[in-house]
């Protein structure tokens, strides 16, 4: 066998593996690309959500800024009308009272105090005046003042060829109320908070989406620099939060809004977020399964191919066997034909020369006995004995082959009658040996009359023959019903049988004694066995109970179906 021979199943399996692998690779690439795009789009969605959240802060600053500008522009216009000339302490006190501010002061372009309402601290407007000169408007951080903390605001107004600054201070709660209202719309997200924090980290206002009072903002939100516009921080419960910051114009303040990412990302999470992944996972699983199936299908087709191959080879073997059987059958028919040919040859071609030898040896004896010497007469006798013996062998062989060749014609056979016939045929031998043949009542059995007669004849003749010298042979034939079968027994008072040879005596040509002691061809019992076997029965020979031997023949009831022991009770009638 060649070394690189591959079994077809192995080849198929490898092909299946390769195809499944290729399929898996392509599918995995496709799935990977899909997953990547999904991840990107989902991350994009999140960034989008964050940026939209951040823009709320920016929008809020713009809203607050515009409100501030509206309010302070009016204040500036009022100041320009009322405090453009000489500004008195009394005038400012009235202004403060009317506008419900803690105090009011007017500063020059350079920040010099021109006038102030009573209770105005000496450093009033210090942090806002310069910015107000530059920008027109400035609001301060939360300032600690005697009484309550205030927030100062400064607005620039024109006076002749220069500007003045009106500084007013309002209590924190005024701003807080205003800022809370502005921050409220910023936090629609569950768990979201919004704060206004001044430049020094003081919380000016705060609202919460689902709480009445917002929690104290985390340090990250308070201390972060203004450039740190957005980011993540861990909340108190370890939850990730997102924050965004926006600088409030004209002020050192900034708006900080925060929300748990869980809430923030809700539109891009939950079912809408994991379902695609589940689908991708399922797709992957399905692809794996398909790959497995493809592989198995290919392997199976390989196995089928192999099975087919095996089937074909077994069919081929079957055909060969069939051919062999046909040949054997032909052989058998031929051997049967040869047997018949042998029978013909034995009966015709062989007997013709034998007849010649027999004839001429007798002719010699008749014509020339006593006319040759004594040896010649003896030779002629030997010749005649040999011829006789050969004739018997041929006759027995013919009988044996006839048992084989002749079809059985089953009929009801009365063994009693058969035994009478046998005694008639054997009359010369019986007379010669002075033998006694006795029998019990015998049954009617179903079988081939001629063969059963031959069986009994051989057995009786055998029983007479193997007798010690000087003993008168006695052969007894009996029968007994053995349930489903009949047993026929032929008992003699002969020399008996060595049990060791009990089975071999039924073999063709098997003899226990020389032809001189007990003449015979060694075929008789073989014929008996053949006849019994053809009738589906069994035959055996055993030492008899009182010496001699007994041959038992069992004929199954299938053969002797209609058996009846007609003479079982002969005295009954």
């Amino acid at each position: 066998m060649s070394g690189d021979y591959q079994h077809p199943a192995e080849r198929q399996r490898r092909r299946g593996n390769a195809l499944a692998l290729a399929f898996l690779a392509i599918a995995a690439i496709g799935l990977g690309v899909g997953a990547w795009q999904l991840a990107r789009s989902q991350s994009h969605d999140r960034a989008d959500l964050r940026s939209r959240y951040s823009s709320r802060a920016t929008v809020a600053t713009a809203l607050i800024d515009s409100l501030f500008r509206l309010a302070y522009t009016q204040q500036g216009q009022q100041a320009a009308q009322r405090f453009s000339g000489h500004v008195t302490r009394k005038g400012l006190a009235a202004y403060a009272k009317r506008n419900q501010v803690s105090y009011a002061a007017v500063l020059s372009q350079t920040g010099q105090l021109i006038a102030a309402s009573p209770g105005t601290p000496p450093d009033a407007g210090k942090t806002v005046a310069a910015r107000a000169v530059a920008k027109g408007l400035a609001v301060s951080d939360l300032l600690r003042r005697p009484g309550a903390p205030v927030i100062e605001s400064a607005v620039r107004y024109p006076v002749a060829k220069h500007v003045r600054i009106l500084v007013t201070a309002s209590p924190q709660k005024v701003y807080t109320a205003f800022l809370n209202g502005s921050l409220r719309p910023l936090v629609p997200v569950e768990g979201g908070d919004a704060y206004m924090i001044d430049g020094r980290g003081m919380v000016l206002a705060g609202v919460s989406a689902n709480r009445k009072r917002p929690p104290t903002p985390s340090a990250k939100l308070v201390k972060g620099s203004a450039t740190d516009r957005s980011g993540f921080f861990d909340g108190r419960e370890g939850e990730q939060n997102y924050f965004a910051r926006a600088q409030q114009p004209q002020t050192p303040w900034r708006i900080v809004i925060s929300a748990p990412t869980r809430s923030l990302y809700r539109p891009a999470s939950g079912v809408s977020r994991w379902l695609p992944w589940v689908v991708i996972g399922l797709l992957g699983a399905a692809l794996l399964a398909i790959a497995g199936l493809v592989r198995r299908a290919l392997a199976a087709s390989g196995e089928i191919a192999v099975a087919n191959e095996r089937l074909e080879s077994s069919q081929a073997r079957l055909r060969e066997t069939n051919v062999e059987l046909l040949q054997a059958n032909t052989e058998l028919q031929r051997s049967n034909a040869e047997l018949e040919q042998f029978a013909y040859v034995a009966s015709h071609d062989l007997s013709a020369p034998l007849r010649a030898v027999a004839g001429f040896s007798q002719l010699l004896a008749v014509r020339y006995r006593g006319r040759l010497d004594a040896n010649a007469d003896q030779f002629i006798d030997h010749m005649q004995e040999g011829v006789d013996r050969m004739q018997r062998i041929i006759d027995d062989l013919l009988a044996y082959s006839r048992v084989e060749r002749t079809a059985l014609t089953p009929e009801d056979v009365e063994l009693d009658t058969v035994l009478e016939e046998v005694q008639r045929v054997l009359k010369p031998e019986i007379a010669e040996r002075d033998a006694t043949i006795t029998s019990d009542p015998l049954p009617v059995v179903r079988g081939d009359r001629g063969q059963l007669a031959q069986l009994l004849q051989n057995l009786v003749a055998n029983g007479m023959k193997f007798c010690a010298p000087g003993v008168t042979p006695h052969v007894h034939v009996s029968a007994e019903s053995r349930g489903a079968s009949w047993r026929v027994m032929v008992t003699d008072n002969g020399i008996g049988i060595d049990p060791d040879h009990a089975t071999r005596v039924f073999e063709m040509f098997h003899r226990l004694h020389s032809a001189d002691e007990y003449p015979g061809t060694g075929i008789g019992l073989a014929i008996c066995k053949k006849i019994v076997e053809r009738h589906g029965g069994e035959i055996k020979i055993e030492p008899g109970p009182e010496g001699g031997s007994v041959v038992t023949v069992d004929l199954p009831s299938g053969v002797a179906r209609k058996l009846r022991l007609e003479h079982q009770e002969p005295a009954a009638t």
Partner: protein
Amino acid sequence: MRILVVEDLGADALLFREALRDAGLAQSLSFATDGAEALDKLRNEPAPDLLLLDLDLPRVSGREVLDGVRRDPRLRMLPVVIITTSPSPDDIHFAYEHHANAYMRKPNGYLALSGVAEAIRDFWIRTAILPQPVHPQARLANG
């Protein structure tokens, strides 16, 4: 008396001849070794008084000889004794159907054969009265 013996096997024929001679029939014997020769002799020579016929013969079988004899108006009355080895019931049936006068088996051994020869002599030659054979010319003259 003339006896025609049809026997193909030399040994059998010789033994039979010896047996018939021992029976005292030596003067009457003539022999044919196959069916064709037998028919030829029967048709062209003076017919025998008795025909001893084997069935297994080369070329033309004993059956055909028997059939030929029984179909021949001149020979149909000829006594025919079948002496053969065949024990076949078919052969026996055929022989008597074609009016053979006896069917015997060739015995083994010279003594048995002598017995057969003596029986033939005693019955057919000494006891039975046979018809006169018809001469071939007689048939021609009559025809």
